[in-house]
């Protein structure tokens, strides 16, 4: 069972990497980019029947730092 966890910085938390990427895109001549936020994806290969609550627990205990990050769990 493939599961994908998408971790993003919370809205309002400064994302210097996103800003740098935004700057570089603008430098390459791409106009119309309003904002860029950089996150990360963690792909999990889980035993069938793994409880959603267990996956959420993994996110809260390790995969995301909920002080600064949000996470989203997607079944592939």
């Amino acid at each position, binding site marked *: 069972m493939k599961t994908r966890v998408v971790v993003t910085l919370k809205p309002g938390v400064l994302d*210097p990497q996103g800003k740098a990427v935004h700057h570089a895109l603008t430098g390459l001549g791409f106009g119309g980019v309003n904002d860029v936020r950089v996150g990360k994806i963690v792909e999990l290969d889980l035993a069938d029947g793994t409880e959603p609550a267990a996956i959420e627990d993994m996110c809260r205990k390790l995969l995301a730092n909920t*002080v600064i990050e949000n996470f989203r769990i997607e079944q592939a």
Partner: protein
Amino acid sequence: MKAAVIVFPGSNCDRDLAVAFRELTGHETVMVWHGETTLPDGLDIIGVPGGFSYGDYLRSGAMAARSPVMRAVADAAGRGVAVLGVCNGFQVLTETGLLPGALMRNAGLNFVCRDVGLTVGTSQTMFTSRYEDGEEIVIPVAHHDGNYFADDATLDRLEGEGRVAFRYTGDVNGSARNIAGIVNDAGNVLGMMPHPERMIEAAHGRTDGRRIFEGLVGALA
């Protein structure tokens, strides 16, 4: 007096911290590997050193915070043992939950490696008692992820309770309210990004960091 320094794969300031403890306590510092599940008996001070534990995988300090030894460190901190986390050690302590907030990528994206000015936020802790309130000191930083973040309520509480130990005198890394170091509510855990162990003797150029260790040893003697 017995001090220990935790060693993770990727720690690189563990020896410096151990030397600082040895110089001030007069006893050899015990080095404890991250895989240990228990700490030596009778510890008075635990140092969580700088470096790049576990290669900063996932987030700085994230993997180290879940290592077996950190459970023992958290238990010891709960019993009142003094814990000093420097740089990566500060990141580990926030990831462990022993200190509030988080340390994010520096706002300017640059790795910052230089001497910085600090003001002492409070002299009312076992770590800072040898400084004056508001005193300006100089201690080096060397980090990529030192941008302290916490929500406004947490920041207000830290300031209101006198738990901001050190502030940068100017913007170094984008830290909220220029916070460079904080203590926990019980006052026995200090996390700070600057490296006091790199300024403890005249040969280092200055000795501004020495008084943290002197204060700690004095408080525990």
